[in-house]
């Protein structure tokens, strides 16, 4: 690689590093601000955990729930919460696209049935 | 006897480049010539048949006009007569223009010269007498023991003379040695005991310990030796002599700047050797362990003010001692300060072994001085290395790696002293000068080693460094006294291995000298030459030039100063012949008359032909072979030259030059070996003598109103063949510029 080519490659690299900033600015300028990122739950409903905690732990929470109910046949814990099952989430959060997928899509989390229903 | 047989070869372009018919006619017309034959190719089967056929007719001599004998042997033992080779191929055809008148003339002249040689050379008579097959070895150190073992192993009686009480020399002081065999990493024990045991067990060997040589007379094959032994004197006969008197360490007292004498903690490598053999190394001043040992390399060596040469061994000794000291005390550090560390050849591996030890520290640098502090502390001041220009290295013990001084006697001084004593005893003028000389040199009175009863002094002549001189690469072991060979550290600074090889080599040379003496043959470099010189003593004027100028001390003098030949000392160089103003010295096949005839045999074209003639005397050791090689490589040069090989530039008698100028030659070119301190002359002095004589010749030329440039000396090595032609052409050109010799038509 000649000296000139080397410098060109380095300059391309530096430009590439600046691109995300550009994209972020464009994104900001297009403006999704103000609108809440996730759709709120139905009014007058109570979440099974505090909402912030639910954000970080719903993945494990749901799997724990699955284990207890399906694998240990233990439906006693936490009152009758188990009776509601997974579908009960949808009771309070009916807009799947705005409540689940939006975040999942952004974070490249692709869920299918077998993520839970396996082994 | 059927006269001289002449065979001319037509191969290798000779037949096509020369008019062979003309050459045949030329040869047939010469005096004493019997048959003349022209053969298509002398080196073929058919040629060999012709040669054999010719030889069977028993001609008085054969002249072969062909190629140089150096490149193509043609004759066999069947040819018992004298054979003259005329190298027409190299000297005429391949180095000059083909089918040219000048080339033809050149070839004709060379052929004529060959015929004259064949005609004029007499059959030599070898001087065959009884010899004593005993080798005298002077010095019983490593080299002496090796020489004695080698000579005894070859079946010769050996007498070893050792001045010490025991055999061994310096080896006795040395308990451990640097490695001598692969992988050249580990110290080795001294082989001395096994060597001595082997030596004393041999029935052919007699050892005289505590003895010195009082006097040696005679010549190779017939030396009369007188020893001073503890019990008195012993006389014996020897055929050859090996001088292996070794060395002494350079006197460290002459190196005050290195602290020797100022502090007991500054020692030489030789002193450290004893300390190491005794156990842990301590500071002599206070008995404390020496933890930091600084080695100062080249202490007095490679220094014009002290020893100008490198002793080659000291660096390895230092490596050995550093590793040895580290082995005894693994906590000690060794510092080595060297101009550059020299461990020649495979011993580089040993240097690398020492470098692997991280506590042996090396640096380049010059040691400016060794400073002794008030409390006795030592520091080595170093300059000129990468440690800095001005650094000091604290040390507990400083070791000076002093060099080796050959233990050889100063022949010239001893001779001067004995001459002065003789002059004083005789009386007459010059008494005061003699007394002064005696006062100056008396200190050397008992330092003789061999006590030779030679005209030219009692010991071997030395070179500028104090070693008995010879050409130490081309002619190892040779000295300027035939039959006496040097071995070991007296020849060159050598280590044990080299001493052992030296001893063997010198012993074989001594044996060769004995056997050649038995058959009356010459030694190096005119191997096997049969004929010693003869002296027409009626005309001798006792000028002593021959006895003085002989490089080998061949000639002694009787009371009237007439030369007395010791034939087996003679190497046949002919320097006496060149020296003699009365021209009374000659060899059967090389004499004033023969060469003069050769000079005069060349027809000189008259002044109108514009064809100059340049006479070239070429030393047969390097210059003449170089000319032949020039021809072989087809380097061309002027066809005006006529080359006559001579035994040595020193063997050129100025009468030949005078003859040439009188004959009408336009110039004389002398080709010989380099003179000077590192002379390449095979007879040591020939070129120097010729340089002096040619000055006289030039003066003569000037007196005759001739340009002194007409005589030129060129120094030629055998490797110079590719430039030699150019140098000859340059001389010819210069002569043509000067003009032709005005004496041509006289």
């Amino acid at each position: 690689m000649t000296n000139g080519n080397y410098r060109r490659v380095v300059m391309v690299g530096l430009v590439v590093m600046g691109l995300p900033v550009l994209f972020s600015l464009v994104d900001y300028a297009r403006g999704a601000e103000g609108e809440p990122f996730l759709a709120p739950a139905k009014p007058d409903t109570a979440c099974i955990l505090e909402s912030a905690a639910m954000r970080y732990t719903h993945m494990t929470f749901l799997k724990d729930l699955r284990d207890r109910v399906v694998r240990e046949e233990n439906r006693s814990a936490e009152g009758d919460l188990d009776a509601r099952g997974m579908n009960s989430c949808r009771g309070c959060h009916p807009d799947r696209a705005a409540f689940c997928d939006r975040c999942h899509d952004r974070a490249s989390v692709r869920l299918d049935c077998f993520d839970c229903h396996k082994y | 006897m059927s006269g001289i047989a002449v065979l001319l070869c037509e191969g290798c372009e000779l037949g096509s480049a020369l008019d062979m018919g003309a050459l045949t006619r030329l040869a047939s017309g010469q005096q004493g010539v019997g048959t003349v034959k022209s053969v298509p190719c002398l080196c073929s089967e058919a040629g060999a048949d012709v040669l054999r056929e010719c030889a069977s007719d028993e001609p008085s001599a054969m002249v072969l006009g062909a190629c140089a004998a150096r490149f193509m042997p043609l004759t066999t033992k069947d040819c018992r007569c004298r054979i003259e080779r005329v190298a027409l191929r190299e000297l005429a055809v391949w180095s000059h223009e083909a089918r040219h008148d000048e080339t033809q003339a050149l070839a004709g002249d060379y052929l004529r010269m060959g015929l004259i040689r064949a005609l004029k050379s007499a059959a030599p008579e070898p001087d065959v007498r009884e010899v004593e097959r005993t080798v005298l070895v002077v010095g019983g150190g490593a080299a002496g023991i090796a020489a004695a073992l080698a000579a005894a192993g070859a079946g010769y009686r050996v007498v070893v003379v050792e001045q010490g009480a025991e055999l061994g020399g310096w080896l006795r002081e040395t308990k451990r040695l640097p490695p001598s065999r692969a992988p050249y990493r580990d110290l080795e024990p001294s082989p001395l005991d096994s060597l001595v045991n082997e030596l004393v067990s041999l029935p052919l060997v007699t050892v005289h310990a505590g003895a010195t040589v009082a006097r040696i007379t005679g010549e190779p094959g017939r030396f009369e030796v007188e020893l001073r032994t503890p019990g008195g004197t012993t006389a014996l006969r020897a055929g050859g002599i090996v001088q292996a008197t070794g060395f002494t360490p350079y006197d460290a007292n002459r190196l005050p700047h290195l602290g020797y004498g100022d502090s007991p903690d500054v020692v030489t490598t030789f002193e450290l050797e004893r300390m190491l053999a005794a156990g842990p190394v301590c500071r002599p001043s206070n008995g404390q362990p020496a933890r930091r040992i600084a080695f100062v390399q080249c202490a007095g060596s490679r220094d014009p003010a002290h020893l100008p040469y490198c002793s080659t061994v000291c660096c390895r000794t230092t490596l050995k001692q550093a590793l040895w000291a580290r082995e005894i005390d693994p906590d000690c550090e060794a510092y080595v300060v060297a101009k550059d560390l020299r461990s020649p050849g495979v011993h580089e591996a040993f240097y690398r072994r020492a470098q692997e030890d991280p506590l042996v520290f090396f640096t380049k640098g010059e040691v400016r001085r060794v400073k002794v502090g008030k409390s006795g502390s030592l520091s080595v001041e170093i300059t000129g290395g990468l440690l800095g220009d001005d650094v000091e290295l604290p040390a507990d013990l400083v070791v000076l790696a002093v060099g080796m001084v050959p233990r050889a006697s100063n022949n010239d001084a001893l001779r001067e002293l004995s001459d002065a004593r003789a002059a004083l005893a005789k009386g007459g003028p010059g008494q005061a000068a003699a007394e002064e000389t005696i006062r100056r040199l008396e200190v050397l009175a008992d330092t003789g080693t061999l006590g030779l009863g030679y005209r030219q002094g009692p010991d071997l002549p030395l070179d500028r460094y104090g070693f008995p001189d010879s050409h130490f690469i081309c002619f190892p072991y040779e000295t300027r006294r035939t039959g006496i060979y040097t071995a070991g550290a007296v020849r060159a600074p050598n280590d044990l291995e080299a001493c052992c090889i030296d001893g063997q080599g010198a012993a074989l040379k001594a044996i060769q000298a004995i056997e050649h003496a038995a058959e009356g043959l010459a030694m190096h470099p005119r191997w096997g030459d049969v004929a010693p010189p003869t002296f027409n003593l009626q005309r001798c004027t006792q000028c002593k030039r021959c006895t003085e100028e002989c490089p080998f001390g061949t000639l002694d003098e009787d009371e009237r100063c007439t030369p007395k030949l010791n034939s087996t000392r003679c190497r046949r160089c002919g320097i006496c012949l060149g020296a003699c103003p009365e021209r009374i010295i000659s060899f059967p096949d090389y004499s004033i008359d023969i060469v003069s005839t050769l000079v005069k045999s060349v027809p000189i074209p008259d002044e109108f032909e514009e064809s100059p003639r340049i006479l070239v005397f070429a030393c047969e050791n390097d210059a003449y072979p170089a000319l032949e090689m020039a021809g072989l490589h087809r380097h061309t040069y002027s066809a005006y030259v006529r080359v006559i090989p001579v035994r040595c530039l020193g063997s050129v008698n100025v009468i030949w030059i005078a003859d040439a100028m009188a004959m009408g030659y336009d110039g004389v070119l002398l080709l010989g070996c380099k003179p000077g301190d590192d002379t390449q002359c095979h007879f040591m002095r020939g070129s120097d003598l010729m340089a002096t004589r040619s000055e006289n010749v030039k003066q003569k030329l000037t007196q005759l109103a001739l340009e002194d440039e007409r005589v030129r000396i060129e120094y030629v090595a055998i490797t110079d063949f590719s430039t030699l032609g150019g140098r000859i052409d340059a001389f010819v050109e210069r002569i043509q510029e000067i003009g032709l010799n005005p004496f041509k038509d006289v």
Partner: protein
Amino acid sequence: MVPSVGDETTMVKRSPHRDSAPAKKPRPKRVVPDREVVRRLLGSGGDAMGQCMQCATCSAVCELTPDDAPFPRKEMLWAQWGLVDRLVSDVDIWLCHECHDCTVRCPRGARPGDVMAALRQACVSHYSFPQGLARAAAAPAGLVWIVLASAALLAAASIGWDATGVTVAELTGGGTRIAIPFWTRFPHGLLIALFLTVFAFDVAVLGLGMRRYWRALSATALSAPTRATPNAWGQSLRAALGRIVWHDDFASCQHEARRRFGHGLVVYGTVGLMVVDLWVVTARQNPLLSGLVYPLGLADPWKLLANLAGVALVMGCVMMGIERLRRRERWFPGGKWSGLEGVRRAPSGTYGDWLLLGLISTVVLTGFVTEGLHLFRVDELRYAAYAAHLVSVTTLFVVLPYSKLAHLAYRTLAFLFVERYGLRRRAAVRAETAPAASCAQPKLSPQEVP
């Protein structure tokens, strides 16, 4: 006139005031070998340095050495003698880019390139604190302890956070910005706090070392300045950074020409990752962002940059590693080298060299593995991979100021020093003065800057 190599020291010590003030002779400098320093150098790449016989082939073939006091010949001698004072105040060790042109040509197999690396390691160790940590970073045994300590540090942080009763939410931030930790045991706030602390420690150690080193340089080298007035700071800094940005010094390397590219990939890969890190660390304060600030989706430009930079890093490391392993074959084809067994070992890199490559590769590869496991939802393993990633990152940060990685500080400093005081590279001098100089300075291996 060709200056003889023996003149080097003379020229180093030449004072511009010599003529005006011959004055009194200075006291000779005492030379006391330091066997402890020698022992350490022998163990860190200088095992064959004793074989140096001061022939100066190395200095003659080096394109980076200045002409008036060339390296590495003098450094070889100083290393053999363990002259630590001179070695740690020598700017030349950082001008060497370890291209090993000298090692290839060394007739003794002393591997000057590796010795210079060992000297740089010694310099870094010398100026850093605490010395215990510096020693641990310089030896394989120490690495085990550093890894264990890093793991313990992370575990302690995780447990300690749990004990304080701060919630994940508090450590992760909230409001309209959603930030989901990869592993709830290590919320981002915790990691940011932890690594900022370690980073501050690095900066402190390196900063102090650089300060000491600069003083040492100024004290020795500037006692005999080669130029009367130093260049301006701004100009010097620009020139120094230019050398780093364009990798100019690598360009004169003859035997490892591809290293310029490999090193560039690693450098710019690291810079890319640092940029992304900066974005992520500041995400919760960044006015441009709202909603989910992390994790980043695969299509996110920042994620793309991060992955690209990671690939560049791994590629660079692999390139350099392969070059290093193939040196023996490339430089001594057919294994034809003379010398003694063990002495002329192939220069396949010192421990410090491999530690750096290994650590960087481990950090990036564990990161990629973690990412992959996350994408494919292999939950059981992804935490293990993430733990390994965190431990390797912590280890890298801990050893940074003590390892070869410290060269990013020391070499920059050295560049700044030589640019400020006008010490010139041979190649640069030749490029400027060619062709007249090419007659005046015959070289063993004339080679143009590619």
